[in-house]
């Protein structure tokens, strides 16, 4: 297979996915969790099957409007939990009272109702979470770039980091398209993929380094043939490794509770995107960048 010749087509596919993500974000908006938007997420254990309309009625009684209610529960069992997303009250006391009222109103029809979880994140905390999340990704990418630069050469580092950002962009795009909530576990998922997909890239780069038998950093000459051979030789490793990791994370997704699913799905997307990009695009992109530089130097 001619990886070098065809990497632009792979890039086109990615561009289309990312574009769809941007359109989806513009049309539907992004499903941002309370960690980043601020507000309160209230999970009520209803003690049995329930009607969403009853919960909405109870919310109205307590003076809570514009609060979407969703059914939730571990897969396989009946969905007996109501997840309510409320805007942040200015006053804590008022919010506590509202919560008590909701439970009281519901307990008439559902005697076993109780509060399972409360997640309340103020505006200050959420702004900080966003800041530290972006900081995490930027710093991690920067440090990885430097490490690859030291171990290989500058262009390989740039190619690797661009592809990492690509993987993150695909994760974000598909998460938006699938309407999955973006909360702080998403950041952990992104960082996991950054760490994991760089593995795939490095194994291939290592092959290029070995096959090229370069004398020093200045002697990195990446022919199309060298790139294609190296990608092909590491292909079965790339695929097998992804399969083993996918097995474990898919098991977690299938059996896990909602908060685990929210974390596992972006990882599954990222794993596939990372493998796709490192096989089809990263090494050819390195060759492309290094080739441009040589042409410039001539």
């Amino acid at each position, binding site marked *: 297979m001619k990886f070098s010749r065809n990497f632009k087509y792979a890039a086109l596919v990615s561009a289309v996915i990312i574009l769809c993500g941007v359109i989806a974000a513009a049309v539907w908006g992004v499903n941002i969790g309370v960690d980043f938007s601020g507000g309160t997420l209230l999970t009520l254990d209803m003690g049995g099957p329930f009607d969403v309309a009853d919960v909405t009625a109870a919310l109205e009684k307590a003076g809570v409007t514009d609060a979407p209610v969703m059914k939730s529960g571990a897969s396989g069992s009946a969905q007996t939990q109501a997840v309510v997303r409320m805007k942040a009250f200015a006053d804590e006391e008022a919010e506590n009272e509202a919560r008590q009222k909701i439970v009281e109103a519901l307990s008439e029809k559902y005697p076993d109702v109780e509060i399972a*979880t409360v997640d309340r994140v103020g505006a200050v905390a959420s702004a900080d979470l966003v800041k*530290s999340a972006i900081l*995490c990704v930027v710093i991690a990418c920067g440090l990885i770039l430097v490490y690859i630069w030291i171990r290989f050469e500058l262009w390989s580092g740039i190619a690797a980091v661009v592809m990492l950002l690509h993987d993150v962009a695909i994760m974000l795009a598909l998460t938006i398209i699938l309407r999955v909530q973006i909360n702080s*576990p998403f950041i952990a998922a992104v960082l996991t993929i950054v760490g994991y997909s760089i593995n795939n890239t*490095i194994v291939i780069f290592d092959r290029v380094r070995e096959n090229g038998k370069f004398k020093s950093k200045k002697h990195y000459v990446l022919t199309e043939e060298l790139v294609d051979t190296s990608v092909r030789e590491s292909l079965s490793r790339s695929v097998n490794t992804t399969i083993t990791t996918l*097995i474990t994370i898919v098991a977690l997704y299938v059996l896990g*509770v909602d908060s685990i699913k929210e974390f596992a799905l972006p990882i599954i997307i990222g794993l596939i995107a990372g493998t796709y990009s490192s096989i089809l695009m990263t090494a050819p992109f390195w060759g492309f960048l290094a080739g441009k530089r040589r042409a410039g130097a001539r």
Partner: protein
Amino acid sequence: MNKRTKSIVWLAVILAALCGFGFLALNGLTVGRVTIKPLPSAIKQGLDLTGGVSAVFEAVDKDDPNLQENLNAVMAVFRTRLDAEGYTEATVTQQGTSRVRIEIPINESQKVDDPSEITSYLVATAKVTFLDNDGNPLFEGKDMVDVGVAVNEANEYVVAFELNDTAAKTFADVTSEYVGTSKTISIKLDDEVISTAQVSSAITNGKGQITGGFDYESASRLANQIRSGVIPIDMTEIEVRSISATLGEGALANSITAGIIGVALVMIFMAVMYKLSGVVADIALAIYILLVFFALATVPGVQLTLPGIAGIVLAIGMAVDANVIIFERIREEVAAGRSMKTACKNGFHRAFSAILDSNVTTIIAAVVLLYFGSGTIQSFAVTLLIGIIASFITAVYISRGLLNLFINIADKPALYCRKGGKAA
């Protein structure tokens, strides 16, 4: 004893030891006075697994020159109040320069209806002031030396206290003056007057009570708050999370099942793809899992949370990665016509740089998370970090030794590699 027999014996010993450690880790052991706890119970679980409340409070005035001093006082007050309510396992930590984070594990027996009850109890300033008829302060909560809950003549719950000498004198003077007049003494809690009363007799023994329509719980909370002291600065609650214990248990059980199924499938996959080498990887994986749980139980400050479990399960997939890289290399060596022994040696040697570089980059990502993340993200980073280090040890060193033992016993390449592959 020839090399082959020796290797069989070694392998048997290693497998027996592995089973032994595995049994020990699951069941624990008591020999005489030495007790080894089963590993699962020694692992500290995060709030999302045990159930509980976590909250972050921030100082309102961040330009306060004595911020650190005041925060220390706040944390001490939080601590005392938590202990007084029986939450001795709760943790109070400072976050950044102006925040305090509390985490309170709550089991079924200490169940509360609403987490806000606890957080508002904690964060209340709880400044009690006794005022004279003109609204001037007579004495405050800090002048009370002995505070407790009592029931008064009217059968109401009250907070009874005893004053220090100075305050007792003031109280005696004022009450003597007010007896028989229409002048009143008021009690103010924070900014609210909770009761106002005329004086029926002079109080000279320094004992008094706070009335205000309390039930037992609210009276004992106020008593605890007064005992713990006043929160010196305004704190605002910026984040609260709570999870019920039943929900936590369910999440843990689900994740464990997922982990077991995932590991079993990975083991089968490896054995099918890499035959005996795959079996070696499976043994190494079992050792890896033991190592990770051992580290989780012993490294201080490590908490197992839901994202942490995800981190471990993910790291299992990654642990196998190094073995995949090595075995693919060995397959190439074998295809080039080398003996199994040489192929193994070369395979490990040539795979090393790729494994090292890829592990270092993942460690970079994990360390960044550990340093800049907070709460559950940090616990995910710790488990990931433990996972990477453990996998490096088992996949590179332990599996190499094991594979050599296997090769000493039987060295037909067909037993270790599937056919095909390009010659190296």
